[in-house]
């Protein structure tokens, strides 16, 4: 089953205005899902990951209810049909 990304407001211009994006295939990990998303919407992924492929420090990615920062990061396994939420962290000044 495809997985589905929840796209935050500031990045929707880079996803054709969509709030949700499904990626085809059956990615096994979060990293694989992001690579699939990048093929369709590179502008989203380049703002979630830095140029070295790391999740930016003030962006949180949730697989289901779990923030991957406290788990396996981009190696986090994906349950079938899960939703991945891209959320800006509560930070600023």
């Amino acid at each position: 089953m495809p997985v589905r990304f929840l796209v935050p407001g500031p990045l929707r211009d880079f996803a054709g205005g969509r709030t949700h994006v499904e990626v085809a295939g059956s990615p096994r990990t979060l990293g694989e899902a992001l690579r699939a998303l990048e093929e369709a919407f590179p502008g989203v992924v380049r703002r979630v990951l830095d140029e070295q492929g790391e999740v930016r420090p003030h962006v949180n990615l949730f697989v289901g209810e779990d923030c991957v920062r406290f788990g396996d990061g981009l190696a986090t396994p994906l349950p079938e049909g899960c939703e991945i939420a891209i959320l800006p962290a509560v930070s600023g000044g």
Partner: protein
Amino acid sequence: MKAAPLSSVRDGDVLLLVGTAKGAFVFRSDRSRRRWEKSGPHFPGRSVYAMAYDGREGRNRIWAAPKSLHWGAELVSSDDFGRTWSQPETPRISFPEKAGATLAHVWQITPGGTDEPDRLFCGVEPSALFESRDGGRTWALNEGLWNHPHRPKWMPGGGGLCLHTILTDPARPERLMIATSTGGVYRSDDGGSTWQARNRGIKAYFLKDKEPEFGQCVHKIVHPSGKPDRFFLQHHFGLYRSDDAGDSWRAAARGVPSDFGFAMATHPRDADTVYIVPLQSDEFRCPPEGKLRVYRTRDGARSWKPLSRGLPQKDSFDTILRDGLATDRDDPAGVYFGTRNGWLYASRDEGETWSAIAENLPQIACVRAVTVAGRARARRPRSAAAPRRTVRRRKAA
């Protein structure tokens, strides 16, 4: 939040490009410089340390470098004075994988000379120089500086490890000068292939070796027009002048209440006239005696005179950052500065009198003064501003 566009921009108008901690503003006046119209904030919530105007080849292009705390730093451009901004899907500037670095901020955007109308430079954090040779479509890391043996020993200053000054030489396109904090001054005489430290004479009071080859905390260098080998420099402590293109520097702080400060700007025509804003010590960083004063030299930094009419002369606890001071091209020259407390001051008589043209802006990081020339609004630029698909936004990016 939608930024209201400027009502109109005509040839001869003066624009102030103002980057702040919470977005960018564009101010416009006609040549009288008496009344200013404000547009902004553009990119609300994003810090903008660098802005620039490229008027070469019939362009009327504004560059800005908004940084989102969440989504990273980018380089965007506008060909209609901020009505719309071009933001490529893939950020224009990023470190190659082999560099192992990530872009933290863009600190400086510098168009090249008029004889190389498609050349631009960016100075970034962590300290590195990027260059475009196609009008800003694509950018490449300057490998010569990145691989310099000194670079691993450069240390971050209070603002970060940033390359904040880029000077090109219209008379010698192969000559480039940059400054990084901390690291100091570096010059290339071969178009950026190789770089040599040029810090002789600059005293680093904060280091064990007081006159090291590199490691100085240079805050700003300026290059007056018409004197290819003359430069003025504001150091962490110390004002300096060079008459040999940076081969050597000599102290030039006679007559200032403090030789600490950040900002420095040249007069558009007179190579002996320079503006600074002294600040008290490197700890307090506010105007000496609570008096906000711009200092001007008319004799090549042999002496300095305070300029205070219209500026607060009591209890001023403000700070002017390294790119917060600018001059326009007019006659008499306009002088402008923005403060950390969000005040934007202007003088249209070369600094003799001042008035505030905005207050309560977010902390101001940079001010650029631009005279619009060449059929404003009418001409399309020769080269498109962005590669691949581009998101054009009417409201803030």
